[in-house]
């Protein structure tokens, strides 16, 4: 699959501080790539380098085969960007803004169609400063699509939005993918990345600490799936004796690690066979958020140790 974005050994230094420290990844055309990381990890710096808004210190970066810094003008004709906290001229309406961008890009897009696509038709003639947070983000999204971009860079597009507005933005992102566009999405919401992204990269302290599809990352870095049942310590002992399973009792709940799918059935059969009382049978597995929190937490611990903290 052709790469829409190709990054190798990317470094961005501010004085002696390396905000981005030798990262590399590739984003295939027509996929949704989610770039995750805690605040100050280097997400926005990387995104801005890819968008041609910031100069890199070292490394190779190709976006649609172009160098974003030196070929910025040509690249901007082919990409769409919603920055974090999209802002526009206060007294301008979405329709007027699209007409403005249409003239600048020399395209023939219909403002009505574009606003319909982002579900903002009812606010076509409302001024920017009268719109809600979600409507402003949709406004930004519509503007980013004015030039029919091949790649959409969405930098935390749903931050601060209510659940309904977030879902509306998700629908637009899914639609962008259906249309064959590449989406580069940075977000704080891990659930969003898990739902939308084909590939994910987690960045922390300027380096990538995990990459792959959400399922691959969970499988590689997450804890195995667990089954839990409410029962007595006697039941836990029974399961340990009969299944050799690592049954742990916590807060009146027996938790058993599942090595494969068939394990759940075996455990349930054994519980039933024990004749002991039990209730509330559930299975749980790590989400991308669990993995993220653990990985970033490990990085923080490592950093503290290297600084000599107790």
């Amino acid at each position, binding site marked *: 699959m052709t790469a829409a974005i190709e990054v190798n050994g990317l470094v961005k230094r501010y004085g002696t501080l390396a905000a981005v420290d030798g990262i590399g990844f590739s984003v295939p055309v027509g996929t949704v790539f989610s770039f995750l990381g805690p605040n100050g990890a280097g997400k926005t710096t990387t995104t801005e380098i890819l968008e*041609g808004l*910031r100069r890199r210190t070292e490394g190779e970066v190709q976006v649609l085969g172009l160098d974003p810094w030196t070929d910025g003008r040509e690249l901007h004709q082919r*990409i769409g*960007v919603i920055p974090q906290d999209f*802002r526009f001229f206060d007294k301008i309406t979405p329709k007027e803004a699209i007409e403005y961008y249409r003239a600048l890009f020399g395209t023939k897009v219909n403002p009505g169609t574009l606003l319909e696509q982002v579900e903002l038709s009812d606010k076509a003639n409302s001024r920017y400063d009268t719109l809600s947070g979600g409507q402003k983000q949709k406004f930004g999204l519509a503007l980013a699509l004015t030039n029919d971009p091949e790649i959409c860079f969405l930098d935390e597009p749903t931050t601060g939005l209510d659940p309904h507005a977030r879902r509306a933005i998700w629908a637009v992102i899914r639609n962008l993918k259906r249309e064959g566009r590449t989406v580069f999405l940075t977000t704080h919401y891990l659930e969003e990345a898990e739902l939308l992204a084909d590939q994910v990269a987690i960045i922390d302290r300027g380096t990538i600490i995990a990459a792959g599809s959400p399922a691959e990352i969970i499988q590689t870095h997450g804890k195995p799936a667990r089954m839990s049942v409410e029962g007595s310590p006697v039941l836990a002992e029974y399961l340990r004796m009969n299944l050799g399973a690592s049954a742990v009792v916590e807060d009146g709940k027996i938790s058993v690690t599942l090595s494969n799918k068939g394990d759940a059935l075996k455990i349930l059969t054994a519980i039933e066979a024990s004749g002991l009382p039990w209730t509330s049978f559930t299975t749980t597995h790590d989400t991308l958020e669990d993995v993220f929190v653990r990985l970033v937490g490990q990085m923080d611990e490592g950093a503290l140790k290297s600084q000599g903290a107790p």
Partner: protein
Amino acid sequence: MRLRNIAADFRIVSRTYFRNPVALFFSLVFPIILISLFGLIFSTAGSGSVTLVVVNEDHNSHASVEFLAALNNTHVVNVQVVSVTPKNFSSYLGQNDYSTGLVIPVGFQSDLANRTPVNLTLYTNPQDASSAGIVEGAVQGVAAYFNLQAVCAQKTCPPVVGYTTAYVGSQVYKYIDYLIPGLIGFAILTSPMFSMVDIASSYRKDGIFRELSLTPLTRAEWLTSRILWYVALTFVTSGIMIGAGVFLFGAHVTLTTGMIPFLVVGPFFFVSLGMLAGSVAKTPESAALIGNIITFPMMFLSGTFFQVSSMPAGLQAFARILPLYYVIDGMNQVMLYSNASRAFTDFLVVLIGSIVVFLLAIRLFKWRDE
């Protein structure tokens, strides 16, 4: 009412205030600027002498020379005799930045001897009231002295030497006539400067420049569109000011195409300068501060409300490095004094300055970060 609450809030107010450079500028620095500027502008009134340009048509007759010597001896005026025909004298004064002038007519000596009333013509500039007052007082005093000296048979003699007053400039009658070009200059300065300084810093802070940098719009195109907007706005404001001056106050203004270059090049300069000031500042607060520091001296020292020639020599020299001086002087030359060659020089100065500042602004104002 609890004192503790008031004290706590007072602390917050004072902290907010002292951490806001613009507020500090307007309350602490601006009054100092005002008092210094006005003090310097009007300091001539109390010290030194005012130049009085004289046309002596009585061909250096004894009486006329004595009259001028008496004026010089008052030490408040400094007589400077020139050879200009009385018809062109008013324009001559305007074109050469003189605020006061005096014409001694032919036959002054014989009229004085024969006790025939003779009228001098005193030219003053309503924009330089202090010089006008000083000179008029001196002329009145010397004329009274000559009237007393004149031999007279009667107990009460009618005065022989009198004077009529006229304004400097070819078609000028009132203070408002002088004020209009100055006020147009004031609008050319303030409107683009204040708004561009604000735009340059707030658009950067809000990420609007970043947003625009992702479009094919270039910085030069963006700045040019702003310049064109302010040129259009300047034409409208000038029209309103001239209209109000003429219809409400009966001003006499020469509407000439010679004004157009200044209404174009003025906004060109100040939009670029505002952008430059806003670009070098790191925050909107410091941008506003830089903007004020540049704007305020120009507001008062460029001939907006007071004629530059009425200021002390040091301030006059300072005024001549201010770009607004050339905009206002150019407009004065075309609207009041019909002096096209000097207006053309003024225009060239502003045009060259505008090109330099425009290029600098484009270079220093960044859409994107390093």
